[in-house]
């Protein structure tokens, strides 16, 4: 029996009474790639943060290379050869690659920095593992893929043999993912042990040697991956029940054209186009999915369609009426609902209670106010009704938004936006960070609105989601629509190519 690189036994960790990890066992064999699988909130990141010394467990032991250790802080973990590539990059944007690599490390020149020698060994390292990056570039000038390479380099530079990668493919195109996996295999063959945190089953099957599954903070299985391992088997472990991952077939959309977006262009502060001649339409009762890697203009498109950013040129028409040039409040009144990407900062007032969060867009309307004073009776009645209708779980209407789970927070937003009887819903990453149950609920609600004739733009980085509920799929790349496809027998490969900006002669439909 070979010694394990990492052995975690009976790890328990609680936050404010909530159990994030409950007696979890985890073993990483030397020189292997180990998948850590689980839904959002299953406790994967917590477990790895414990291994990395960011959190201290209440119970359990940790053995590194067979030696029991207590991890008090990341420095200690790093000294033991553990390195972590975080999901949200831990890079300081205005600093250069070299400076980021040096950060927190002792220098050969005492208190003074030693850029020259660090740069030299960095170049050597990047050639060894095929991780090309310009050491003198500032982080903010780099693409997401390059930034990830810097993160990996930084971990390797610190001499890590045990690498933890937290959802590394979430921000990559399918092609970039392939590239990353090649690098990971190269590192494994070089004797490194790698933990890959993910909720994507395909990735586990493709690259992992072993897998540990977490569900609700508990371990739900761990084993070698063989050819016999199947997706559904892993899904059952991960979710703990049979999940219908698809919706019933629905009739094709036959509504009239409602939202028309024509030549929409938006330039940023540096006069560079972030949206470049966007054209598409959405019919009544239709869901158009917008696929694309994060940061290709989705956020900006959302801002433009909800009136938050004035566009540089182009037109937006709603049922034949010109919208652009109007104020955001008029967009809201015209019936453009918006489920924003960032629940915490944008979609909700975290310090407000449920009741008031349900009226932040309509507090001024005659429904909720009279002669400039709030009509608390109507406001409470509205909240009561929606709390019930959307099955929002909370200690009461006076619960603050920040005290709720992600799923319930999203339900407040859904309740508010849908109850305003919109004509159009712009849903930006509506299921990000939610578990499967909550995600399915959100999708069901969107389909329900589709039935009622609402036009929906679904922006998502999750291709599965787009394929599941869209009528048509548009692909955005660098602020341009690279193609619009009917959602019938489309291949993921084709969408992947478009997402990477490769135009494969896909002709736009409509």
């Amino acid at each position, binding site marked *: 029996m070979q010694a394990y690189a990492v052995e975690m036994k009976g790890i328990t960790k609680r*936050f404010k009474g909530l159990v994030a990890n409950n007696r979890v066992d985890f073993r990483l064999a030397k020189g292997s790639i180990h998948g850590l699988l689980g839904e959002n909130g299953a406790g994967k990141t917590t477990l790895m943060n414990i291994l*990395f010394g*960011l*959190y201290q467990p209440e119970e359990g032991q940790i053995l590194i290379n067979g030696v029991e250790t207590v991890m008090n*802080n*990341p*420095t200690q973990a*790093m000294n033991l050869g553990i390195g*972590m590539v*975080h999901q949200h*990059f*831990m*890079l*300081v*944007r*205005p*600093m250069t690659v070299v*400076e*980021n690599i*040096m*950060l*927190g*490390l*002792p*220098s050969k020149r005492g*208190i*003074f*920095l030693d850029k020259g020698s660090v740069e030299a060994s960095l170049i050597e390292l990047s050639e060894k593992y095929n991780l090309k990056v310009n050491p003198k570039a500032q982080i903010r000038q780099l693409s997401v893929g390059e930034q990830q390479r810097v993160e990996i380099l930084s971990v390797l530079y610190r001499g890590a043999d045990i690498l933890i990668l937290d959802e590394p493919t979430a921000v990559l195109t399918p092609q970039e993912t392939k590239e990353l996996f090649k690098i990971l295999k190269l590192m494994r063959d070089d004797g490194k042990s790698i933990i890959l945190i993910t909720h994507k089953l395909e990735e586990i099957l493709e690259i992992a040697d072993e897998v540990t599954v977490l569900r609700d903070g508990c371990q739900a299985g761990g084993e070698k991956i063989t050819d016999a391992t199947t997706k559904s088997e892993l899904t059952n472990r991960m979710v703990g029940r049979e999940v219908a991952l698809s919706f019933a077939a629905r009739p094709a959309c036959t509504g009239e054209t409602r939202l028309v977006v024509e030549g929409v262009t938006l330039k940023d502060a540096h006069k560079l186009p972030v949206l470049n001649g966007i054209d598409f339409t959405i019919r009544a009762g239709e869901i158009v999915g917008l696929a694309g890697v994060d940061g290709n203009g989705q956020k900006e498109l959302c801002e433009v369609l909800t009136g938050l950013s004035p566009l540089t040129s182009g037109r937006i028409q709603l049922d034949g009426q010109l919208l652009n040039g109007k104020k955001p409040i008029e967009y809201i009144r015209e019936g453009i609902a918006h489920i924003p990407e960032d629940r915490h900062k944008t979609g909700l007032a975290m310090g407000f209670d449920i009741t008031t969060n349900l009226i932040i867009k309509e507090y001024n309307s005659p429904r909720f106010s009279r002669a400039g004073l709030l009509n608390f009776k109507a406001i409470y009645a509205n909240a009561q009704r929606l709390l019930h209708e959307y099955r929002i779980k909370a200690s009461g209407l006076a619960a603050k938004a920040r005290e709720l789970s992600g799923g319930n927070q999203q339900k407040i937003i859904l309740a508010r936006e849908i109850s305003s009887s919109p004509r159009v819903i712009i849903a930006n990453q509506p299921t990000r960070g939610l578990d499967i149950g909550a995600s399915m609920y959100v999708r069901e609600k969107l389909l329900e609105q589709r039935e009622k004739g609402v036009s929906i733009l679904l922006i998502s980085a999750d291709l599965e989601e787009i394929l599941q509920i869209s009528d048509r799929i548009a692909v955005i790349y660098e602020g341009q629509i690279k193609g619009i496809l009917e959602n019938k027998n489309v291949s993921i490969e084709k969408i992947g190519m478009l997402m990477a900006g490769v135009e494969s002669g896909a002709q736009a439909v409509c």
Partner: protein
Amino acid sequence: MQSELLTQGFLISLLAGTIRTSVPILFTALGDIFTQRAGILNLGLEGIMLMGALGGFVGAYFTNSLWLGVLLAILVGTLFSLIMAFLSVTVKANQVIAGTALTILGTGLSAYLYRSIFGVQKLPPQVEAFPALKIPILGDLPILGPVLFNHNILVYLALGLVVVTYLVLEKTTFGLSVRAVGEHPRAADSRGINVPLVRYLCVMIGGAFAGLGGAFLSIGFMNTFLDQMVAGRGFIAVAVVIFARWNPYRALGAALLFGGANALQLRLQAIGMPVPHQFLLALPYIITILVLLSVSKKAEFPAAYTVPYSRSER
């Protein structure tokens, strides 16, 4: 009167005065560069400077040693800034409120202690201030000599600290940590940097420098302590740092600009310019606002400016 403006003597005294009046702001601003770079807005500097001014004066008065006065001022400034560090880092309080509290406390405490120590006297107690130190050879140069090389030693110290501040921030591992902590504390934390410690140190460096700035007022520029002697310089120092976009050399330039405005109004008042002197007195404050207007849009504040860091929150 027009001719009087253009005499050599007037110009020399104006320029030398500019340097002298800018030094207390410069000291405080240099320290505040560390504080702000680490992501903390310390509006308590006004109160810390007052405490430093008192500390410097008391130290010098009772020990008859100006240097012990300076030392006491630095010590008092550092200790007093600990309150700000505690409130902003440990308590994670709103920094504007914490700073305001510290300024109110410092204003009250310095006046209270001064009255308690010296009582009410007809003639305010005085010390012999730092004498001007003429640098050999250079001090004899025409114009440049009296303008640049005939100041007390604290002025030279301030100028030297500009370079030191730059070197520490840009060329040392500590400086790199400070910048990272102000930009992305979580990243710094994940690289093994002790974020609270760095922030405490930066607030304390700011306090030490502000104490020094205050001491310059009481035992370098004047020779006594007055309740109102800081007169907003602590706040101006904060504005200077923003104006200078966290760079020590630019901070020197900005401090000179403020010193210049003040020196100009003093001298114009002395020769009886017809402009109401209140306008000249208000000038540095108006310039601060104008400067803030011109730089704020493009100034890239440290990303974690005024944001407390907590490991468990995301």
